[in-house]
């Protein structure tokens, strides 16, 4: 037994040694151990793994920054798009509101036109009925030995509306010696029948000053400050062919001197004293001639210089005043102009106080007149 155990022990030891040798041989072929010093490692450069790790870290940081930047840009773009959309929406809303307003105005005009058309139809029916009645009357008059003057009175015609051809066709509509075709058709206004009035800019007309729409005045300079005085108490008449006033015009404008108002009562009082209002209560301008610079018949405008005589404080001097003349849609003439004069030339002593407060001798007088046509001037020059 002991011998057996020894044999087994020997075999085991032998097997262990053999196995160790085999294992050593295998391991020796697969493992290579390299030992180098630090100098050699430095000579071979940085560790690629570390470099790769550093690159990856840098790339990660760059990617983060890029993401943040792109995010900011996108936010800004979003805000800009939002603002633009809001502005466009507001502009479109305003435009839509304007269009709505225009549509409402057009609708209102359309409604009025429809109403006026209906009214015109009704009036036309009335006129036709009147003509029928008149024809009946004429027929009856023809049947009986009665004169035509017994047809229905002109009062009926006066209530008849604007129907140009029919009105002109009626004998009562043109009792004047002039042919009916020479006058424009009568028009209505607020149920009133307006008289037929022809108007030609290039014809001599009588013009009457409208005090309510006219003003004359002056601009003066004083030691203290400049000031103006004006009055609407102006009246007068003018006869002229406003298209060719140089061919002959005449007229006179008068102003109530006491009504000149400078806005200061004390100064007005001094002015009235200086003008001698108690003795010569009126200022006047006599329109004697005209020097035309330009005239536009289509626009009904003329400019030039009025030649006339100005009377202030009982003293008269000839003056020339550049003016602009125009006729508006209401057929009212507007005459505007100004000229400088010396008060002393008219015997008016410029007010002076304490030897230092004074008004300059030269003042600018101006007119802003509006006149209504009273009709063509018979036998006037200039046509």
């Amino acid at each position, binding site marked *: 037994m002991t011998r057996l155990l020894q044999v087994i022990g020997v075999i085991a030891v032998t097997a262990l040694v053999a196995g160790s040798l085999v294992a050593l041989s295998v391991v020796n072929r697969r493992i290579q151990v390299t030992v180098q010093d630090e100098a050699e490692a430095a000579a071979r450069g940085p560790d690629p793994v570390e470099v790769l790790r550093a690159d990856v870290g840098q790339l990660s940081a760059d990617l983060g920054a890029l993401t943040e930047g792109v995010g900011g840009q996108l936010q800004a773009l979003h805000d800009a798009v939002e603002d633009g959309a809001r502005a466009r929406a507001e502009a479109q809303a305003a435009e839509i509101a304007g269009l709505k307003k225009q549509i409402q105005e057009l609708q209102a005009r359309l409604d009025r036109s429809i109403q006026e058309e209906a009214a015109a139809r009704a009036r036309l029916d009335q006129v036709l009925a009147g003509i029928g009645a008149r024809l009946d009357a004429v027929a009856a008059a023809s049947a009986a030995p009665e004169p035509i003057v017994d047809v229905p009175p002109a009062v009926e015609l006066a209530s008849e509306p604007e129907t140009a051809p029919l009105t002109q066709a009626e004998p009562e509509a043109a009792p004047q010696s002039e042919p009916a075709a020479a006058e424009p058709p009568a028009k209505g206004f607020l149920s009133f029948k307006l008289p037929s009035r022809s108007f030609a800019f290039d014809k001599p007309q009588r013009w009457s000053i409208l005090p309510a729409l006219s003003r004359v005045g002056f601009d003066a300079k004083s030691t203290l400050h400049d000031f*103006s005085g004006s009055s609407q108490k102006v009246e007068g008449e003018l006869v002229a062919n406003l298209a060719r006033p140089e061919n002959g015009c005449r007229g006179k404008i008068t102003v109530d001197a006491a009504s000149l108002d400078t806005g200061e009562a004390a100064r007005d009082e001094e002015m009235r004293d200086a003008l001698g209002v108690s003795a010569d209560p009126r200022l006047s301008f006599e329109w004697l001639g005209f020097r035309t610079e330009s005239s536009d018949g289509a626009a009904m405008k003329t400019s030039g210089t009025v030649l006339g005589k100005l009377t202030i404080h009982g003293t008269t001097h000839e003056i020339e005043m550049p003016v602009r003349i125009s006729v508006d849609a209401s057929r009212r003439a507007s005459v505007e102009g100004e000229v400088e004069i010396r008060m002393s030339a008219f015997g008016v002593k410029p007010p002076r106080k304490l030897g230092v407060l004074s008004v300059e001798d030269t003042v600018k007088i101006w007119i802003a007149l509006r006149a209504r046509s009273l009709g063509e001037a018979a036998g006037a020059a200039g046509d």
Partner: protein
Amino acid sequence: MLPVIRPALLGVLALAPACVHAKVMAQDDRAVAAFAGEQVWRPAEAADVHGLYESVSIEGDAAAALWRIYYHFADDGTYTGAALTLGGSQPEFQTLSGTWHLTDSTLDFDSTTTARALVAGDELRLETEGGVVVLRRTAIQ
């Protein structure tokens, strides 16, 4: 004393224009406006229209032959009017009467003529194709 006062006054006067602004009427303001002031017009209602009116301004084509208009609008829907017109050598009055009613600020005369009616204070503004008239309410005296 005068030699002292006079230079002082001159000094004051030399500086005064800087303190006192000019009161010269602007050239554009010389002409009298046809419609005085900037009225705030609103659409008329029937209650605004009743009463006696006299025209204060007429503009447009109608103004060429129409000098003045008077209207009396009665509560019972009737009206009477007078217009001073100029057609011949002398002005003449036209008078008329009829019925009126107001619908949507449109004043209807006798169902034949209409005008847009606006009011501002005691003024009534009537607008038609032929012109615009501003009437002012007046008292019967």
